[in-house]
């Protein structure tokens, strides 16, 4: 359902090339993991998929169900069912998580010709998920992400993902900085959401999460390119050996 072909992307302001030809196909129901050294372009890929304006697609295409989304605004992509759990979610002063998420859900439902969820129904869903993910109720009364700890922000991203119920969920290092309980909660959430219709692209540095959420396919991204693709065992290999060999190969190649 998600297809990335020969994707090149640059930083909009500087024309610096970050993604250098990525090919990736994600079918319904699949879970893909993306690993790679710091600065290799994992977050850039995730952000480009979601349409962040600070990056420009200079070559190649991204399609969802055969339709190119490269020209779409981020909100239109969300309406199509894309979701990005961000590595560094923004703080938005004065905006309550509940209010924000209700507005988001209404916008997505509206774009898909569906009726708005009633306040009561939405509150029920919201409270249920807050409890499941183990979010501190004090946080919900604060402004969105303001003064949240790193782990709290990640849990809040999971809350949004579960409430918005996307078809293609991209998770950028959601597992980084989580305590054991939170990691378990994230994994449980993902596993519960796994279905033949839904796909996941999970960016991670650690095997830890992948123990709980078994990926169908693992990719290694180095310097803006996918250099190896394999099954779950690839993640173990990476965790043992690190990226030395890939980086050496890349240097020799130059």
């Amino acid at each position, binding site marked *: 359902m998600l297809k990335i072909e020969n994707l090149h992307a640059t930083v909009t302001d500087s024309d610096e090339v970050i993604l250098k030809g990525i090919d990736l196909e994600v079918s319904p129901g699949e879970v893909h993991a993306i690993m790679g050294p710091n600065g290799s372009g994992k977050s850039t890929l995730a952000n480009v998929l*979601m*349409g*962040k*304006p*600070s990056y420009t697609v200079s070559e190649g295409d991204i399609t969802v169900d055969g339709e190119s989304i490269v020209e779409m*605004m*981020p*909100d239109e*992509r*969300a*309406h199509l069912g894309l*979701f*990005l759990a*961000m590595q560094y*979610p*923004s*703080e*938005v*002063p*004065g*905006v309550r998580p509940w209010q*924000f*998420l209700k*507005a*988001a*859900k209404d*916008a*997505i439902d509206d*774009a898909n010709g569906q009726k708005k969820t009633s306040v009561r129904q939405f509150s029920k869903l919201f409270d249920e998920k807050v409890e499941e993910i183990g979010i501190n109720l004090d946080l919900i009364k604060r*402004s*969105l992400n303001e003064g949240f700890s790193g782990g709290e922000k990640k849990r809040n991203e999971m809350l*949004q993902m579960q409430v*918005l119920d996307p078809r293609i969920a991209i998770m950028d290092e959601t597992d980084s900085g989580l305590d054991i309980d939170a990691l378990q909660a994230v994994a449980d959430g993902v596993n519960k959401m796994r279905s033949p219709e839904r796909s996941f692209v999970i960016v991670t540095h650690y095997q830890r999460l992948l123990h709980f959420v078994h990926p169908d396919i693992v990719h290694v991204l180095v310097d803006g390119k996918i250099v190896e693709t394999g099954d779950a065992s690839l993640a173990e290999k990476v965790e043992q050996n690190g990226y030395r060999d890939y980086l050496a190969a890349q240097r020799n190649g130059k």
Partner: protein
Amino acid sequence: MTTQDRLTISRESKLDDAGYKWGFSTDVEMELAPKGLSPDIVRLISEKKDEPDWMLEWRLKAFEYWSKLQREDAEPRWAKLRYPDIDYQDIYYYAAPKSFDDAPKSLDEVDPEMLETFDKLGIPLHERERLAGVAVDAVFDSVSVATTYADQLEERGIIFCSFTEAVQNHPELVQKYLGSVVPYTDNFFAALNSAVFSDGSFAYVPPGVRCPIELMTYFRINTEGSGQFERTLIVADEGAYVSYLEGCTAPIRRTSQLHAAVVELVALDRGEIKYSTIQNWYPGTKDGQGGVYNFVTKRGITERDAKISWTQVETGSAITWKYPSVILRGDNSVGEFYSVALANNYQQADTGTKMIHIGKNTKSTIVSKGISAGHGENTYRGGVKILPGAENATNHTQCDSLLVGDQCGAHTVPYIEVRNPTARLEHEASTSKVSDEQLFYLMSRGISEEDAHHMIITGWSRNVIKELPFEFALEAGQLLKVSLEGAVG
């Protein structure tokens, strides 16, 4: 006696300004005094209102003082505002619906067109539909049209009526407090208002009474070329409490309209006044034509243990010149100022407050949020003055500016004068932009660019908006959204 023009204001072709939905005008037969200002016009206004001699004398003295300032070219120019010279002789100083020749005794006698106007503005005056929990005094051009809930208030001894009625029925109160906080010598625009004010609202809450409902005045300018000069006087007697709301709109007009109001608040010992404004006068077209010039003097005085709180959301007017202030005269008294001012397109706002600490342990809080968009220019001008007798006075000032786009301006001009060493003052200021990261975050969740902007901006203004009574807070949020249309996306 001067002659009087009579004319019917007709609906004019609509200017191209879809954004301002309050911009319609009303067909009402109006009675106008001739344009221009003279002692005769002042006398005419006073006579129309059947005022006692003391009132006329006060007006004439104010007129004399204003004329002197006018001759000395003493119109204030220190604000960061640019506008063409105002021709004070080219303005109607009295415009009243003709059906008011003999003031209406009940709503049945009010011109239906006028009732419809207030309906359209969301302020129904009919018994059946009127706002629950809010007593409304509706002022159309210069004249109070109707006051709702007056009977219920009267039972508790609360007086809420048009200024004109107050002069007739409660002259001792008016005479005692009129000009006691803002004398006519205060400034150019206050002098002008004192000479020609035509109506406004008066409220008095007796000792120990908590006013059970919100009092609201809704001001509407209709007549083209007319100035609006209303006068509001609110007195909370010892231990009394009142929450007062003020809303305002005007039709879309190609020419600018002058609005120079004066508001005086008096909070006696342990009294409390909460004064909320949503100012939505016509801001002019996108390229800066027309709009209301809003020069307003608002000030309150607090006696012992009293409190005055100003909250304002200023989205309208081409020019805003306004500094709701508090003179903290009594010991332990409290003054607050919460403001969101928005300047979009070619709007200019120069607004802020003055907190003058006289009593011991007096405390003031200032939270100012200025939003600039388009070619808007927004200036916060605030003064905090601690006089020698004000032992242990405290002030906290927070002053934030938000820029939308890169053609607009935000300026902060704080004046601080401390003459007592025990004073504690804190000042925080910030300037920010709506960040691309925040926008992307919200949009990635499916929220449109415009809604995302709006959400970020109202969120940023929340500290102020939450001070408003609930319905007003909703309206303020909507208003910010409408006022920002075109600035984003």
